[in-house]
């Protein structure tokens, strides 16, 4: 699950604005939907209670109560939430609306689940109810569940209120099974390269929403995870024996070569999908799109391939390209996890983790997350110093050297006398 804690303020601000809008439009909306919902339900949304109380004196009992008290009272009766579930159909709005419902600690996905423990059960009643969920932002399953309550028709605009019912009816009529979707995250969003950096491990984990596989072993789904570094140009050189010496004679420059690349999958990617799909997403070493630099005279295809293979081979030798054909394991029907090593020599720069969900060779869903890889502390300072102020850096290096020499000679003198 993606935790979008980076912009909580903006999110809450937006949410507040929507809440105000909802208040302004409340009368008509409430009139439309109010009857369908338990009277107590509004209690769950203290901030809105407060906002709405003045304009909605006729609101059901409980509305006028002080907000936090109201929330506190609400705690024991969380069962009240379930009926709201159909509102899942609103996923796209849910994140904003969740925020004003401040009892929920934040918009952080996982955090909200425990807040509504009992809500989970009633959630399941019919598959049809869950159907529209796939419209939700992949990373925010929990807000989706919370959303219904927030978006309670009473406070939504008429237009908004109409949507879910429409969607529900549709899905109910079609009777399709819910679409599978992958949700994932990485264990470390930010890797600091400090003076003690000796490499690290990144765990990628996630789940298949609406998984239809019976057990972890049934192998209905395939997961492929790639972690890519920045695309950079790379020069490949080939040595030839010239008069007894091995000398670089031929060179080929490729563009768009990921500085780092790891591919882990539930089984070899060649078995997972066809080359076209893999190429399109750069899944697997052979499917990394590295192109000869334009302008230069391109060698024949066979030679170009040998240069390409050399790039991959050398990168693998440096542990910068890694592959694990069975490196992703399902832990349950839907949960999977995998670990990828970042070696100490990993080139500094942002990494992107992609998680792909396949079924029967078809790419069902994908998910991406960024991992920042930055120099920190003295490493960062030294590197910036060397590259931003090279002259001063050089002078500093000489200064240190002279100082070291002088200190050494003075120590030696003291020692010898």
């Amino acid at each position, binding site marked *: 699950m993606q935790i979008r804690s980076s912009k909580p303020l903006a999110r809450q601000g937006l949410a507040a604005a929507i809440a105000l809008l909802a208040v302004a439009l409340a009368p008509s909306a409430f009139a439309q939907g109010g009857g369908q919902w338990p009277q107590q339900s509004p209690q769950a949304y203290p901030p809105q209670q407060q906002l709405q109380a003045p304009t909605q004196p006729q609101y059901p009992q409980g509305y006028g109560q002080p907000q936090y008290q109201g929330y506190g009272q609400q705690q024991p009766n969380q069962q009240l939430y379930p009926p709201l579930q159909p509102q899942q159909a609103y996923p796209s709005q849910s994140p904003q609306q969740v925020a004003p419902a401040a009892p929920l600690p934040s918009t952080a996905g996982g955090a909200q689940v425990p807040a509504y423990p009992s809500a989970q059960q009633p959630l399941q009643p019919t598959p049809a109810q869950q159907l529209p969920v796939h419209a939700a932002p992949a990373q925010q399953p929990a807000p989706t569940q919370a959303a219904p309550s927030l978006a309670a028709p009473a406070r939504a605009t008429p237009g908004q209120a109409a949507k879910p019912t429409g969607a529900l009816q549709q899905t109910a009529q079609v009777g399709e099974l819910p679409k599978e979707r992958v949700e994932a995250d990485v264990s470390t969003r930010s890797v600091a390269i400090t003076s003690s950096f000796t490499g690290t491990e990144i765990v990628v984990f996630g789940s298949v929403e609406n998984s239809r596989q019976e057990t972890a072993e049934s192998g209905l789904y395939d997961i492929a995870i790639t972690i890519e570094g920045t695309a950079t140009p790379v020069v490949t*050189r080939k040595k030839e024996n010239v008069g007894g010496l091995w000398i670089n004679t031929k060179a080929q*420059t490729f563009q768009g070569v990921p500085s780092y690349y790891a591919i882990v999958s539930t089984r070899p990617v060649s078995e997972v999908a066809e080359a076209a799909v893999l190429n399109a997403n750069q899944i697997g070493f052979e499917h990394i799109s590295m192109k000869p630099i334009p302008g230069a005279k391109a060698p024949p295809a066979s030679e170009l391939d040998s240069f390409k293979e050399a790039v991959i081979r050398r990168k693998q030798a440096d542990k910068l390209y890694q592959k694990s054909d069975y490196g992703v394991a399902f832990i349950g029907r839907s949960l999977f996890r995998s670990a990828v090593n970042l070696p100490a020599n990993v080139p500094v720069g942002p990494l992107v983790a992609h998680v792909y969900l396949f079924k029967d060779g078809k790419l069902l869903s994908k998910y991406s997350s960024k991992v920042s890889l930055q120099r920190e502390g003295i490493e960062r300072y030294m590197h910036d110093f*060397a590259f931003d102020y*090279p002259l001063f850096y*050089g002078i500093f290096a000489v200064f240190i*050297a*002279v100082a070291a*020499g002088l200190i050494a000679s003075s120590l030696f003198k003291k020692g010898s006398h």
Partner: protein
Amino acid sequence: MSFYLPIAEMSASIFIFLGMGAAVGFLSGMFGVGGGFLMTPLLIFSGVPAAVAVGTEAAQIVASSVSGAIAQYRRNNVDIKMGVVLLTGGVVGSAIGVQVVKILRQIGQFELFVSLTYVTFLGIIGTLMLIESLNTIRKTQAGQKVSARRPGQHSWIHGLPFKMRFHRSKLYISAIPPLLIGAFVGFLGAIMGVGGGFVMVPAMIYLLRVPTNVVVGTSLFQIVFVTAATTIMHATQNFTVDIVLAMLLMIGGVIGAQFGAVAGEKLKGEQLRALLAGLVLLVCLRIAYGLITTPSDLFSISGMMGGH
């Protein structure tokens, strides 16, 4: 205990580089040489990019030369005027060398060029030194008296213009030969990551006929300034000076040099030279071996240079 080197961009064991610095420092203290010709190949063998090894070694040579230069200066063994002429040439040669390093890195021939210069110069110097020291040993064993003084003689060098008087060296010669020698040594130093004492000292003795008592001091004097300039130029042109690595080598080096100097006092001059010659030839052969054996992978990759 590992440490991440900021410029070399690799994680390395502190003790390996401290030990390397100490071992080379021991040898340089024993033989009275800078040790760059040993350290740079060692760094390259241990996985440090060749260009970073060369740039970083320049900084380390400043450290190892500065105390020697000051000691020699105090004993009035430095011909400042000669040193200034040499280092003027040296800085120019070094500037050219740094640019050559830059170009060679771009066309992918830097490693080859470094290896070839090492094999050539270590081979020549090592062989000459070995022959000379073995001859001396044989002569001393035969009971002959060995004269360190060579008869003064006129050569084509004395016909060149721009004559200058070098009081400390008791010479009145053209400024052109010292400038050229300085430039050549500076150029080599920038490319090979060495101070160039092993070229400078014989050149001063045999070509310029500088008295031996001022040769070492003057050579050290110019090495300090030329390698300091080289360090700054490598830092600004190639971004290949790793201060952290240099400091590790310096610490190991100064400690090793103290023990080496003590050990060196127990050996005779010609024995030391024979040992040093053997060491130089070993390094030479090791590098030559790398050039002629079939590499395990004919291909190599590198990032684009100069795109920063």
